[in-house]
């Protein structure tokens, strides 16, 4: 009988607590009934082994008593769960990026990539975990999302968006803006800077002059890529990768510019925007210069932030496109 006890124990371990003991009792009665009928008296160990083999492995038996499965988050809740996780993660990431951006602008705190990463490492799992806990509780109490009882109309099916289609307007705008900027940079490299008032003295931005080559190169790459995309008409994995690489280059250039301005300002003891405005009355000429450089720094900071977000969106689209093409190719196969 020892084997039967062990078998019933193993099955019970895998059953929901609710009706575990009842199923175990029934299983025991069924096993003994069968055994008695077959052996008519004292069953040998071989008889028991044969019987248990016939009943099947404990995990299979336990699973057959819970045919709808045991879930942390079941299939009825899962679509809602996925949506909520998406919204929550987007909100947390967005809030974090916004906090970083505001940090630059008002306190001129430097980007600390490690710190940002560290923040994401704790906030992303924490958000995900909270949503999982909330849904696990819903699952435990067997809450079901309300299903719409309205009759379903096939005509209301959404149009299929082709995420591979290239937005021509966006590309054309990119080419024009990039070319104009490039032309200005190359034609008047010494005319980019700040006119300080009062007095109308021109002060050339030294940082931009320093990185002129790199800026032009990065602009050229973007323009070339936009032209290529316009010619292709559709996104491919390769062009998405190229786009991300070009964005990374822009990010490096923008970061260098931002850091350069920052270092320049720190050297002159003016890291804060508000401080410079307060000091404006004492020494207008110098402080106008500082304010001008701070404005440049802010502009590059914002541009960097925008590029980071754009790159993330691009990455997301690339993953989505590759997933959907995988599905469709699997369907076609």
């Amino acid at each position, binding site marked *: 009988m020892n084997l039967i006890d062990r078998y019933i124990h193993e099955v019970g371990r895998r059953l929901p607590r609710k009706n575990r003991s009842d*199923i175990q*009792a*029934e*299983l025991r*009665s*069924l096993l*003994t*009934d*069968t055994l008695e*009928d077959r052996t008519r008296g004292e069953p040998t160990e071989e008889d028991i082994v044969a019987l248990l083999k*016939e*009943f*099947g492995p404990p995990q*299979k*038996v336990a699973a*057959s*008593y819970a*045919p709808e499965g045991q879930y942390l988050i079941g299939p009825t809740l899962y679509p809602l769960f996925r949506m909520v996780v998406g919204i929550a993660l987007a909100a947390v990431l967005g809030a974090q990026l916004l906090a970083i951006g505001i940090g630059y602008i008002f306190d001129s705190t430097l980007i600390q990539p490690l710190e940002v990463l560290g923040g994401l490492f704790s906030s992303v799992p924490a958000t995900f975990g909270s949503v999982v806990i909330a849904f696990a509780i819903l699952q435990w109490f067997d809450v079901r999302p309300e299903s719409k009882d309205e009759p379903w109309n096939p005509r209301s099916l959404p149009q299929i968006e082709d995420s591979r289609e290239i937005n021509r307007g966006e590309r054309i705008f990119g080419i024009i803006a990039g070319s104009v900027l490039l032309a200005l940079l190359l034609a008047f490299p010494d005319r980019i800077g700040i006119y300080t008032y009062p007095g109308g003295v021109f002060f050339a931005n030294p940082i931009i002059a320093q990185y002129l080559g790199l800026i032009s190169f990065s602009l050229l790459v973007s323009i070339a890529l936009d032209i290529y995309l316009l010619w292709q008409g559709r996104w491919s994995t390769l062009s998405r990768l190229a786009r991300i690489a070009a964005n990374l280059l822009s990010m490096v250039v923008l970061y260098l510019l931002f850091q350069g301005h920052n270092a320049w300002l720190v050297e002159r003891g003016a890291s804060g925007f508000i401080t410079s405005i307060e000091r404006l009355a004492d020494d207008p000429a110098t402080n106008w210069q500082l304010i001008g450089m701070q404005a440049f720094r802010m502009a590059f900071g914002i541009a960097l932030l925008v590029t980071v977000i754009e790159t993330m969106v691009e990455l997301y689209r690339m993953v989505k496109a590759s997933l959907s093409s995988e599905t469709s190719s699997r369907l076609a196969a």
Partner: protein
Amino acid sequence: MNEQEFTEINTNLTQELRRGILVLATLSQLKEAKYGYALISSLSERGLDIEQGTLYPLLRRLETQGLLQSAWDVEGSRPRRYYQISPAGERVLEALVADWRNLITVMEKLIGNQEGESHESH
């Protein structure tokens, strides 16, 4: 398709087919209260062999759905759980039997027809 694949597919399809009639077979045998092993024996005697692992969970599911009633009998040599059809179960059984008879007629026509066709084509 090699022989092994054929056997596998064949076994799966046969099981699927049998699974469909399991509820009907079970309900039809539970006008009187029976315990699990007695039910399996009675089905087996009439020519329907069902795996124990399939039948017992089904009994519990039918009880949850209200088609069967059950009670533990602790007076015998050992406790046994007896299952019997409920009034709701009887109504379901009646409808299922009608469906089944209808299906037999239809399927007979379909299968018979197909055989006829294949004979003609030869």
